[in-house]
């Protein structure tokens, strides 16, 4: 038997690694005259682990969950199965890519995406 066989055998015997299960957080979105505001429920994520990236027209939010059951001897009930959050949004052309505010409070991520000047309502003076 060669080394590869031995490795395969011991991999079967090992406990399976916890599955990587990301869920899309629930979001609310509202629009104001100068911005779009997204709030996303991400309980159990941390500010340190939070990743908000904009690439081209795509805004991506990612966060792993911190381990929750240190020293656990037995799980008695499990309703929380995910290991992290991930969701992508497609940005319209009227969003200022440089001006995004992000805040994480009480397990809720709030993103404020400012509209570019072109997209803001403007009052036109009558000459």
């Amino acid at each position, binding site marked *: 038997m060669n080394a590869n066989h031995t490795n395969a055998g011991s991999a079967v015997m090992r406990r399976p690694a916890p599955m990587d299960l990301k869920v899309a957080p629930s979001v*609310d979105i509202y*629009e104001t005259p100068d911005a779009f505001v997204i709030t996303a429920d991400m309980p159990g994520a941390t500010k340190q682990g939070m990743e908000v990236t904009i690439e081209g027209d795509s805004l991506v939010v990612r966060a792993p969950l911190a381990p929750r059951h240190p*020293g656990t001897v*037995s799980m008695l009930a499990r309703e*929380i199965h995910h290991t992290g959050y991930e969701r*992508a949004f497609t940005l*319209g052309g009227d969003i200022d890519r440089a001006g995004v505010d992000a805040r*994480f409070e009480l397990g809720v991520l709030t993103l404020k995406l400012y509209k570019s000047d072109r997209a803001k309502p403007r009052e036109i003076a009558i000459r």
Partner: protein
Amino acid sequence: MTVRFRQNPIFALPFGDLSAFEREVDGLFGSVLGEGGPAAGGFSPRFDVSSTEDSLVVVGELPGLKKEDLKITVHDGVLTVAGERKAPALPEDAAWLRTETVHGRFSRSFVLPYPVESGAVDASLVDGLLTIVLPKAAEARPRSIAIR
């Protein structure tokens, strides 16, 4: 290993004609439910319950809640967590484009599998995650028996 998503993570944020359509749809539901904005009721947070050597640990997902919004009681061997998630306020001259989060009152009860020190229960709420640690009562702790 396959990565599975419970919901489709790729979700377009419509800023064109679609948003006007969605506002109309939201408006329809709003009139049926009696109010607009995020869905009222149906808030039922998820919990995990685990046991360590010396405690029972109950962890719940409560995004947006402050400790004032929660009431935790232990009575007759039953732990109850009750509270309310208030609907978010919409600033003046703003309009909802999408509302997925749920709000309202909830109450979850857990029958404790063994006696706990109800005077020494510890609860913390950090980043939307409630963690309740209930130390096992002396009679429920593992005890090593000396052999004579």
